[in-house]
């Protein structure tokens, strides 16, 4: 890894998508409350900075881009973007649309949390150009919501869906399994209740105790215990079975969708394609360089307001490391996996020359399947994906 200056985008429209982004991520850090498992760049109690933040965001875009960049996907994540009021949302969307005009058939997702939506906000989103909503439901069990330190109750989810569903064709729910104290039956119930709401897309994540979070500390102190690995295994297996039976097919380790409703934006990450990123803690990958903005809100505001960029660590991988990383990311795509032809085109490396022995090893253990053209995780490989992937690096 070499350290280079943060890139100012001077790429040419003809550059391939792993060099010139066709996707942009915008971060809104505000939240009503900090959840127990959350290690995102998010903060509660800072809403008074929202207008200043939106100004800074606009300034950051102005600083980094020399003109509008048409994109195929936009993703506004958080934090909780819908923590902004309707006016702020409209203003945000207008700014973004100016810099990133959406190409035909483009996808524009906004993340929302139960309890933060109202008809005005939904209207602002829909009329501002957004065409996909990702709602953080996480769980329908009061006990799990408590364990995860979420501050909404199960009914808030259906209320939010009632607002979203009439206006958006494409909407998704996020769920978390393996909350401390949760059981397999409770998780089955979560899946049922989620399916009953009729989403075209579901993200189901096994809970991770991220370093520094409240849950992590409580586990260290012995106050909470992760669910048994056997139970977690069963929960994940159940997820795959139930959702596919309901027509939501798995296309990534934690993502399921009705065919055609996959998140195009997230597929950009798993193809190791380029993307822009703006806002607090936002990551970007432009012209082969990864960089991340500071996660410190006052620092972000100060730097942008004084005309500096807000970039923190920068990383540029050598071609081989980039190719290996690409292989790992592509393997996350459970349905398509790594296409040899595509891999060579994007990385310049022959997949088998690069990691033939480890692919064969995992194939022989039944974790990968290889039809000669594509390599992808098998059902049993899904559960041990990190073992398979680390071998590729």
């Amino acid at each position, binding site marked *: 890894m070499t350290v280079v200056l943060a890139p100012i985008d001077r790429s040419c429209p003809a550059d391939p998508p792993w060099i010139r982004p066709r996707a942009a991520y915008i971060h809104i850090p505000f939240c009503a409350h900090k959840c127990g498992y959350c290690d995102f760049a998010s903060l509660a109690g800072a809403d008074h900075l929202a207008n200043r933040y939106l100004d800074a965001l606009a300034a950051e875009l102005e600083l980094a881009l020399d003109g509008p960049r048409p994109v195929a996907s936009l993703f506004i994540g958080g934090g909780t973007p819908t923590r902004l009021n309707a006016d702020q949302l409209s203003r945000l969307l207008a700014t973004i649309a100016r810099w990133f005009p959406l190409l035909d058939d483009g996808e524009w997702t906004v993340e929302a949390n139960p309890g933060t939506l109202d008809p005005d906000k939904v209207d602002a989103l829909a009329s501002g150009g957004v065409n996909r909503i990702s709602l953080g439901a996480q769980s329908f069990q009061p006990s799990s919501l408590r364990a995860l330190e979420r501050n909404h109750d199960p009914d808030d989810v259906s209320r939010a869906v009632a607002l979203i569903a009439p206006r958006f064709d494409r909407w998704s729910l996020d769920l978390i399994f393996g909350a401390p104290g949760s059981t397999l039956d409770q998780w089955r119930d979560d899946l049922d209740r989620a399916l009953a709401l009729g989403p075209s897309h579901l993200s189901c994540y096994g809970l*991770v105790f991220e370093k520094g979070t409240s849950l992590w500390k409580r586990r260290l102190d012995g106050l909470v215990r992760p669910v048994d690995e056997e139970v977690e295994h069963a929960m994940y297996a159940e997820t795959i079975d139930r959702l596919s039976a309901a027509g939501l097919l798995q296309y990534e380790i934690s993502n399921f969708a009705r065919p055609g409703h996959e998140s195009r934006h997230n597929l950009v990450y798993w193809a190791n394609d380029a993307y822009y990123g703006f806002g607090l803690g936002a990551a970007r990958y432009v012209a082969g360089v990864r960089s991340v903005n500071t996660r410190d809100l006052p620092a972000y505001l100060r730097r942008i307001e004084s005309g500096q960029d807000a970039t923190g660590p920068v990383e540029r991988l050598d071609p081989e490391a980039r190719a290996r990383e690409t292989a790992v990311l592509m393997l996350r795509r459970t349905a398509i996996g790594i296409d040899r032809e595509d891999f060579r085109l994007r990385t310049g490396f022959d997949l088998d020359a690069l990691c033939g022995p480890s692919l064969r090893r995992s194939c022989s253990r039944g974790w990968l399947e290889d039809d000669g053209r594509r390599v992808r995780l098998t059902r049993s490989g899904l*559960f041990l994906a990190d073992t398979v992937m680390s071998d590729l690096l």
Partner: protein
Amino acid sequence: MAHDPKFIRNFSIVAHIDHGKSTLADQLLLQSGAISQREFREQLLDDMDLERERGITIKARAVSIHYTLDGQTFELNLIDTPGHVDFHYEVSRSLAACEGAILLVDATQGVQAQTVANAYLAIAGDLALVPALNKIDMQAARPEEIKEEIFNTLGLDPDEILAVSGKTGAGVPELFRALIDRIPPPSGDVQAPLRALIFDSKYDDYQGVVVYVRVVDGTIRVGQKIRLMAMEREYEVIGLGQFRPREVPVQELGVGQVGFVVANIKQLSDVRVGDTITDAHTPAASALPGYQEPRQVVYCGLFPATHNQFEDLRTALQKLALNDSSFTFEPETSDALGFGFRCGFLGMLHMEIVQQRLERESDLSLVQTAPNVTYEIITRKGETLHVSNPTRIPDAGEIEEFREPYARVNFLVPSDNIGAIMALCEERRGDYIKTDYITPTRVIVTYELPLAEMIYDLYDKLKSATRGFGTMDYELLGYRPNNLVRLDVLVAGDRVDALSIVVHRDFAERRGRKLVKKLKEEIDRHQFEVAIQAAIGSKVIARETISALRKNVTAKCYGGDITRKRKLLEKQKEGKKRMKQVGNVEISQEAFLSVLEAGEA
């Protein structure tokens, strides 16, 4: 310069570790004008990285100092020696090239186990001892008490004991005078045919083997045809020199002189330390008394972590052997670990140093098996076997008598710690011999211990039992029969030969239980359940099960996560590098060594 032996003195400095030998050596160089104040930096003579880190002089070196006393210039040859017990052998061979030795004792620490041991080596070699207290510049120095200790332990006259500071140079002129007065000059025959003792050698990439010699009789000259008497090989001297401390070429070395010889010798194995160099045309009638070959007391298997690096490891070992003739290696095959080498070392520290140097200098990842000693086995058929690899121990039914090496160990400890030392030795099957008081507060406790019980952590245990004040030294005694058994480890049903150990029958159950427990912690979970068993013959005496790894998958990986997740995966991969695949199970280096920790009482 004239080589009149009358004006030559050859000596070593012997001391317990850290008593200031290297610092004093530098001070001698400084006061003789051989180095400048600027060059007087600590431990000038220790130039290997590892030595600097550990503060231990590993390889003996020789320096010639020219010192003028009362208008007469003397050549003083200082032969540096290592202080650690593992390197006794190197101490004694350095001493063989001297007529005297400075016995250096830290005036704050007093007599320590290796002070005593090294002093006895010097006395046994008929050397004139010049005792000196060091570090007298320090507040905590207790010169009178320490002189008393030296008298009580070694019988040296307190009035003859000098007081110096290697750091400030105080007392060093007096020390020079004492060296010249008290150490006899070399007594060789100038007219006789050449006899020079090889006391060390090293390999140099440019010059080939460089041989360190001490001329006893006659003269060695550039251009001379020489013969190595034991090896029966002949060479032409192409270069001679001395270290002052920089290499200075000379045309000849006469009686009593110390220096190095370059003679186009290709391999270190062509030279035997302790051999005699003579003139090829007019050879001496007999060689000088040589040395005992160094004895390897600790063995372990070294295997490349990656299968195809066997040849690389061989090359690396050969290269290291060029500069260290005191470790041995021979190819060995393990079912579990594949092709590697069984290596013999002078002691644990020596083993550690060799392993670190191998990894550092060759960029190889190594898997090391638990160290062990050599066992002597009398079979039912009446054969005597010496086995330094537990795997090769025959089945119990074939063994008539199972013997293990013992050592006599002297612990020099504060008298308050007698109880702790005894407990330490009892739980290691030690036989108590005696306790000697050297002062009312310090004692030498002597035990006879199975060597196998000493090699792992006895030294560390001693240090912690005595809050750092205890020291130890040992000498080997030979083999004694005991009720020993081979304890095998089965992982997933297969015996892992590299995990076998030898234990006393009475301790077998306890060790077996600890061992499988430890292995359970050290072996990563696999995708299937892994049973770990300890067995004597076909009898399983302990068992643990490692549950299967059911789920190992990162749930989330979006734009902001990619770098971090990749690094986590890289770390997983890195951890696997030092793993050995045994059947379907991957076993880490730590697991192979955990055998040792399970041996802790």
